[in-house]
């Protein structure tokens, strides 16, 4: 090792010397890596912090139970299960729970109302026990307040949301009933930000119409009990409408809720790192080309090929390490700033209302640091191999572009990458994540970029034969043809940033267009009414009265509930409404046999649960597992975790529940919406809070949500493009500045300054145009992977390709202008040097 130190000294001299001579090039490359690492880490930390907060919120509501039995739907299950479970061997303690969504007039969002048996909860979920206020406080959590039918204990966030304080009175609405209660104390064990109300279980069952029903039972196992055996024993006694969940399955469910979104955002953030990698590639390629004679000299002086390879790789590694370390600091600051300013929600709506603390993840930081390092080294690999391969005898003669323009570049490595990328696109998701889809994108990008020398040659060769009047343009064409490898280096950056931008823009445009079309179909009525969920909705008599309102031609009542079909998956939405094919964008259908109860499943549900039209499935809709026939699959963008649509009449027949929480209204010809709204409001039951909305409002709201959820996407994409453009500018600028000697020679030959500037602008514009054309082509291919692979595998919905022509045209024009402008500016700088001195320059 000691013997190697002097040689390392030589490499250090060479590297430091290069950076001393061109510090901005190394700094630009390091900054590009820093930006990529910072974005990746920041997005990851924001999402991880939000997920951590969200999981804590879930565990707060669930208390500290080791195991839980939960109802598969909000309706819950029969309380007779409770004594059965309590008697099972291995179960140390059980605590029955009523859990309802509650609200109050003027409240800021819903509150989770939990009915507990305090004495039992003390052994299983002590964090849900309250602290009574006033005189009761002295008696501890099991004071009289805990058994008072009229008392409720509220968490800090619930006090704020309901705008009350201990000692106040409160009208709480849940399961369609409004009950006056006294705020008897607080819940100090509940985490910050969680809106939870706790009251006595018997009072909750009685006063909110839940007699004989429980939503969950919390369990604690005996010490040393065989958990597997106890679980099996519980599973044997569970009815169809109840499900066993554990902390682990809840964690998996929380994770599954937003995992695809988080992974997609992580991948998007890594795009900036990828374009940073191309910037490193361009910078290193140029540095290697410029130092070709220097490397040749080193070879002559006795430096081995692999030492040169190592030197260029080491340069990349130092750039990557410096950029990575800076990126970690920047990423932490960015994540901290985002959490302080925006909370944990980056627009996807998964963590809305969550205000997480920044959770530093050393493992993730290390991964991003290594990714930064590998990207920079990856970007240096090809230039390093070129440096090592250089023929010293040839390079010492300093013949310029090392590629003979008459030799056709190889296309097969690129075709191989493109073919493997295309094949990867057909592979299935891994654990719900489109790993192969992302791999396909990366391979297609690599293949496309690798094809650039060949594409550049193919597209630029005709230019050589073009005869133009102006000497400047003629020179520009000849130069582009004669120095294909330099053209290819500059094109790589343009193609990488253009293709990524085009792929994302086409995907978002297709998605938005498809959502807009879908909204047009599902929002086909004139007016929509929605009752507050906790208010219970409209009973049949109210429905009949409302349907007879003057100005109403037809009123279709609907409601929704949820089903937990798997402990690991988020609940499935159940939409109850009269079946109407016109309002359901069907993708596939089957005719149900006589006597079968049909359900229509959404595209995500079909994907997640493997349902197909014509299949018979079992759903615990009515407390019992009942058979249903899958009569069709419809496109649905509103429930990412799946939905089934059940005909209203069938639902009422199966459950006896005829209440509906909303309605779609078709107005009579000539009826004015505001008049009809007033008339409908007049017929509403007293105390029921309802909202009215016209389809255009709902549509605008939905598209606003869409745009908000893609705001971060646009931001990350914009940064990736800026990094890419910086790479293009740096490449063209460095290439132009390296041609000072050529410009000096041309000036000696009598070419005017303005002719050289025109030549450079033409070169830049032609290069930009070739890059943009190739980038758009590659981007369109990559967009198809996003549309048909990444999106369906991540979010389980499909869409039709819609091209954003205006955006594509403007970006193409901007890129061509940027390339020409950069060449022109750099040319002016290069021309400012003394032409005579430039010709005499040795290097």
């Amino acid at each position: 090792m000691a013997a190697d130190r002097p040689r390392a000294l030589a490499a250090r001299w060479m590297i430091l010397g290069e950076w001393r001579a061109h510090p901005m090039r190394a700094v630009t490359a390091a900054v590009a890596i820093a930006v990529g690492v910072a974005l990746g880490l920041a997005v990851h930390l924001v999402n991880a912090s939000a997920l951590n907060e969200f999981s804590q919120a879930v565990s707060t509501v669930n208390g500290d139970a080791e195991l839980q039995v939960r109802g598969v739907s909000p309706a819950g299950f029969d309380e007779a299960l409770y004594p059965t479970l309590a008697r099972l061997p291995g179960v140390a303690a059980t605590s029955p729970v009523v859990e309802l969504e509650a609200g109050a007039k003027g409240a800021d969002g819903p509150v989770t109302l939990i009915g507990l048996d305090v004495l039992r909860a003390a052994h299983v979920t002590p964090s849900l026990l309250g602290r009574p206020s006033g005189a009761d406080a002295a008696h501890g959590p099991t004071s009289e307040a805990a058994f008072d039918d009229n008392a409720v204990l509220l968490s800090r966030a619930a006090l704020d949301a309901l705008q009350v304080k201990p000692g106040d009175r409160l009208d709480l609405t849940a399961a369609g009933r409004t009950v006056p209660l006294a705020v008897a104390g607080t819940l100090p064990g509940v985490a910050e930000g969680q809106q939870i109300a706790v009251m006595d279980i018997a009072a909750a069952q009685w006063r909110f119409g839940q007699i004989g029903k429980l939503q969950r039972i919390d369990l604690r196992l005996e010490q040393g009990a065989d958990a597997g055996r106890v679980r099996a024993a519980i599973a044997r006694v569970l009815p169809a409408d109840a499900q066993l969940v554990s902390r682990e399955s809840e964690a998996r469910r929380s994770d599954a809720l937003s995992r695809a979104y988080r992974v997609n955002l992580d991948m998007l953030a890594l795009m900036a790192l990828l374009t940073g990698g191309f910037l490193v590639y361009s910078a290193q390629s140029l540095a290697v080309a410029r130092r070709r004679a220097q490397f040749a000299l080193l070879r002559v002086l006795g430096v081995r090929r692999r030492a040169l390879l190592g030197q260029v790789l080491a340069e990349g590694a130092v750039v990557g390490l410096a950029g990575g370390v800076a990126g970690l600091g920047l990423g932490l600051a960015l994540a901290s700033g985002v959490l302080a300013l925006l909370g944990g929600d980056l627009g996807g709506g998964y963590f809305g209302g969550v205000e997480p603390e920044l959770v530093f993840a050393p493992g993730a930081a290390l991964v991003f640091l290594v990714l930064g390092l590998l990207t920079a080294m990856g970007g240096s690999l090809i230039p390093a191999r070129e440096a090592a391969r250089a023929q010293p005898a040839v390079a010492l003669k300093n013949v310029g572009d090392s590629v003979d323009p008459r030799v056709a570049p190889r296309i097969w490595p690129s075709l191989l990458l493109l073919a493997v990328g295309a094949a990867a696109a057909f592979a299935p998701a891994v654990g719900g994540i489109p790993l192969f889809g992302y791999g396909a994108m990366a391979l297609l990008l690599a293949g496309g970029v690798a094809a650039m020398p060949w594409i550049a040659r193919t597209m630029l060769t005709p230019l050589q034969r073009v005869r133009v009047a102006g000497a400047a343009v003629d020179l520009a064409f000849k130069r582009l043809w004669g120095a294909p490898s330099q053209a290819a280096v500059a094109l790589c950056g343009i193609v990488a940033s253009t293709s990524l931008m085009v792929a994302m823009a086409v995907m978002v445009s297709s998605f938005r267009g498809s959502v807009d079309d879908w909204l047009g179909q599902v929002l086909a009525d004139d007016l929509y009414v929605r009752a507050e969920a906790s208010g219970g909705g409209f009973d049949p008599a109210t429905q009949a009265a409302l349907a007879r309102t003057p100005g109403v031609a037809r009123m279709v009542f609907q409601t929704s509930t949820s089903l937990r079909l798997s402990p690991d998956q988020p609940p499935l939405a159940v939409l109850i409404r009269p079946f109407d094919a016109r309002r359901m964008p069907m993708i596939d259908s089957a005719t149900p046999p006589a006597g079968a109860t049909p359900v229509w499943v959404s595209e995500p549900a079909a994907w997640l649960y493997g349902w197909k039209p014509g299949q018979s499935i079992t759903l615990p809709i009515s407390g019992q597992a009942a058979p249903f026939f899958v009569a069709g699959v419809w496109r649905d963008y509103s429930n990412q975790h799946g939905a089934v649509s059940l005909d209203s009449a069938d639902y009422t027949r199966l459950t006896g529940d005829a209440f509906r929480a909303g309605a779609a209204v078709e107005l009579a010809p000539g009826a004015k919406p505001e008049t009809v709204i007033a008339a409908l409001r007049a017929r509403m039951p007293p105390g029921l809070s309802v909202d009215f909305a016209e389809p255009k409002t709902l549509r605008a709201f939905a598209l606003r949500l869409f745009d908000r959820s893609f705001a971060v996407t646009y931001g990350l994409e914009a940064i990736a493009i800026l990094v890419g453009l910086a790479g293009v500018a740096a490449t063209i600028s460095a290439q132009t500045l390296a041609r000072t000697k050529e410009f000096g020679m041309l000036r000696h030959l009598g070419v005017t300054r303005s002719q050289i500037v025109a030549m450079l602008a033409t070169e830049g514009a032609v290069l930009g145009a070739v890059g943009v054309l190739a980038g758009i082509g590659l981007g369109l291919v990559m967009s198809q992977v996003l549309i048909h692979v990444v999106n369906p595998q991540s979010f389980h919905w499909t869409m039709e390709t819609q091209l954003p022509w205006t955006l594509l045209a403007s970006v193409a024009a901007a890129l061509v202008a940027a390339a020409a402008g950069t060449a022109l500016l750099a040319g002016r700088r290069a021309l400012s040097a003394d032409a005579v001195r430039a010709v005499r320059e040795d290097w």
Partner: protein
Amino acid sequence: MAAESPILSLRSLAKSVPGGRVLFEGLDLDLAAGEFVAVMGESGVGKSTLLNLIAGLDGADAGQVAIDGVGLETLDDDARTGLRRDRIGFVFQAFHILPHLTLGQNVALPLVLQRAPGAEALARAGDMLDAVGLPGRAGDFPHQLSGGEMQRVAIARALAHRPGLILADEPTGNLDPETAGRVLELFAAQVRQSGAAALLVTHSDVAAAAADRVLTLTRTGLVERHGG
């Protein structure tokens, strides 16, 4: 006849350019320590190619090149590189001084590549710069030098690691006659002082005159030039 074994030995060397044109064939040469030989010839005759073959930078079509009795054809690229590093010093027409290294670092580079400690290498480089008439300039950068000064640095670099063989390719080709004369004088003095064998290729009679023997490169080999 020199009794000691030659540092450089060329036997039946042949080389053609792509396209088939024969540059030379049947070329023989022995060069012993302390010998300073100039090879002349017209442009395109293959003088630089001959140097590339000797340095192991190019491969011969036929024949052998041996340095200190080691045949280059028996060595792989790494071994040829090592031999070049340890036994050969180069001086080029275009100087090839690394612009981002100081003069001291440029001269010390061959020593550092031979794993000499940095301080030792820089001290030797300082001595060499003194010897070529650039005292106290070790910390300067090349852009501060004239062409003649750059070639002095190149000579110092070629000799810094005490090679047995020095190859010089038109070392005065880029210099004005007056500077060229001073550089040649310095080169010859340094070569003789080092005791190394030296092969200078040039088309300049003035440059060739600095050598002990002058040979002309022809298609059939090297021919002794008399009376020059």
